[in-house]
């Protein structure tokens, strides 16, 4: 997924080859991760797609099925991966993920601790942010889930940036070997306050911590414990509102020609003077996520 060597870089010259992970795009809300394997086929409502047809094609290609239906083959990114990964738990989405990475000040070379791993949605973006020289150590107490996450990171090519450990961080804290080494810690736990003292021990001076909790009661208790050794404690909620864009034909009121034509500059030569007038308009989508979780950030107090 990441351009750890230049051959994997996004490039005009990069062609799909056997074993590549591709994101098969049907619609903006229907996508699937597929590992290309020469003898395999992909079957969906648009027909049957032979993987062998995909080999040697550039990423971003439109591919047709036996029935003439089509899909696009995209190169995987952490954002696309978040949309296609298998949900073993609730996952974090792009708005929270982006904000966490920025607010924790994670840059290449950072050492980041995370618990729990869950489905690895955030972990994938953490790995991208610390690459190429940093590392993410992520812990989950659920052995099978940790194993699945490990498999996913191998599949997405992040195996060398992420280490998955099986450990109950609420009960045992983070391993002592990371004491004073972490640049940032992320907690997504049911009782984060139990892990905060350990997180404080792991962090470098002025290091950052984020705790994600869906419920305000969790935030309340976490904040009480945070203020013992942390400062700059701030709690946020971040959401995304999406817009739909449409070209609508609007009736002219009769004063033809006197109304400004909005699409004049961008038309590709079409005749736009005729009535009714068409106009590109945007409005918020009717449905949206109303809540994901509260993000509480803080920084280890300097003594």
């Amino acid at each position: 997924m990441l351009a750890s060597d230049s051959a994997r870089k996004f490039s005009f010259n990069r062609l799909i080859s056997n074993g590549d992970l591709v994101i098969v795009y049907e619609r903006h809300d229907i996508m699937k991760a597929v590992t290309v394997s020469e003898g395999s086929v992909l079957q969906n409502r648009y027909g049957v797609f032979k993987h062998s047809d995909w080999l040697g094609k550039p990423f971003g290609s439109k591919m047709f099925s036996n029935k003439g239906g089509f899909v696009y083959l995209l190169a995987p990114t952490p954002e696309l991966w978040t949309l296609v990964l298998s949900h073993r738990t609730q996952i974090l989405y792009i708005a929270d993920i982006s904000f966490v990475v920025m607010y924790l000040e994670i840059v290449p070379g950072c050492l980041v601790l995370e618990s729990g791993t869950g489905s690895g949605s955030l972990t994938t973006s953490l790995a991208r942010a610390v690459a190429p020289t940093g590392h993410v150590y992520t812990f989950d107490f659920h052995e099978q889930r940790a194993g699945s996450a490990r498999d996913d990171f191998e599949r997405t090519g992040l195996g060398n940036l992420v280490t998955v450990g099986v450990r109950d961080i609420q009960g045992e804290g983070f391993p002592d070997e990371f004491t004073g080494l972490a640049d940032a810690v992320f907690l997504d736990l049911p009782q984060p306050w139990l892990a905060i003292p350990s997180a404080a021990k792991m962090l470098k001076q002025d290091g950052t911590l984020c705790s994600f909790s869906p419920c305000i009661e969790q935030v309340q208790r976490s904040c009480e414990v945070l203020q013992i050794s942390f400062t700059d404690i701030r709690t946020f909620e971040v959401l995304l509102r999406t817009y739909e864009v449409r070209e609508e034909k609007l009736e002219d009121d009769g004063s033809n020609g006197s109304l400004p034509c909005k699409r004049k500059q961008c038309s590709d030569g079409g005749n736009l003077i005729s009535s009714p007038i068409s106009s590109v308009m945007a409005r918020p989508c009717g449905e949206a996520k109303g809540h994901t979780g509260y993000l509480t950030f803080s920084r280890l107090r300097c003594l």
Partner: protein
Amino acid sequence: MNEGNSSNGRVTWEGCSVLLDINDGDRLVFARLSPAAKLKIGNKNCSLQPLIGRAFGTVFQVDTAPGGPCLSPAQVHVTNAEEIGDGQGNDEWRDKVNVNSADEVRDGAVNVESRDNRALVDNNTAQSLTGEDIEAMRRQGARGNEIIEALIANSATFEKKTAFSQEKYRLKKQKKYAPKVLMRRPVARSICEAYFKKYPSKIGFLRVDTLSLLLSMANVSSNSDILVVDMIGGLLTGAVAERLGGTGFVCNSYFGQAPYSMDIVRIFNLSDEICKRILRSPISDLLSPKESSEKILQHDVCNVEGQSNDQISASVSMVENSHSSENGISDIGIDNTEPAIEVRKAPKAGERAQKEVIDSWKENGFSSLIVAAPELDTWTVVKDLLPLLANSAPFAIYHQYLQPLATCMHNLQLGKMAIGLQISEPWLREYQVLPSRTHPCMQMSAFGGYILSGTKICSTANSATPTD
């Protein structure tokens, strides 16, 4: 700059850039540390020398020393206040907790409050200390905290206030008599927040969560070549370079002959290795066919030289020198008393891209595109630049208005140039979290800008035809 002084460094050095947060965000000053640098706090001129070699995150207070006022690290029990959204809520709590213990707080000791404001009358007679009294204390070398205690002792109404308003009183006096200076790392987050708070128009009203989304949506990752159009002072370029960590390239491109200002890049503590990865190129060079590059080299050198000198003088004069500002409540800018040193030490970010690297971009395509160009027609920019992206490359276009993005999205759809197109608007709400007093902050930013994101697909010419 030596190796240890990367953007990830946690201790300051001479020549390093810092963000000074005075009294919980009342005043935000970007400064470059040098023995000669001075900052006026209140009515005192303080040397920044004591800040050199200290950990980021340290809080300083103004002390009176034999040589005059000087900054020294504050004791921990005084260093409770950091920048908080509304500046007060959490401090109250933290002060409480410093007085009591955390357990007491949990037991609800803070929640019990029987006092209210029925006995308070605002007739301006509550304080029996006069301005002369305070001046006299100062002359005798009283420290800020001692003055605050004296003010409280001489306040007829302090005891009648609720615990919460007592803390507010204390905080107000602290800001005046014992100002605190928190030394923050200048990174994408803190720089964006500082500008958004004080000079949002300089960064096109780009809020920090929106910036974070741009970086994600454009898949900014090491070893990538990111094409940017940055007309927001270099904030975007610096944020991308920070994420690249000295690998790949960020190509800061511009229409016409004159590059856009990149002053904000200099506020980041980017290592030389990272600065070398920030290149500039006129868009005409990127669009020209691959072989005709002689004339590019020709007017290259003088143009770059002239430009970089302009940049330096521009940024020095842009400095809001806090020495001259009377109250200094909102200054933001590089505080710099020694331009000569400054020029020598300024990282050389933004060299003009040479033919070889431009050729490699033409050969491979850019990994992604980010545009923050409030003054340009969005569709024109995207139409020109999208073909420069590698196949399947993501892009993210920022604008503070919706309509240019809607038009651009519509045209991209009609032209079948991209898929996964979406316009999104982030919404960010901060909370005050206190025992029994948790609620959203009273003030919030209602708008952080719009983003159009999507993924470039192969042009129809390259695309596969139905299999036979």
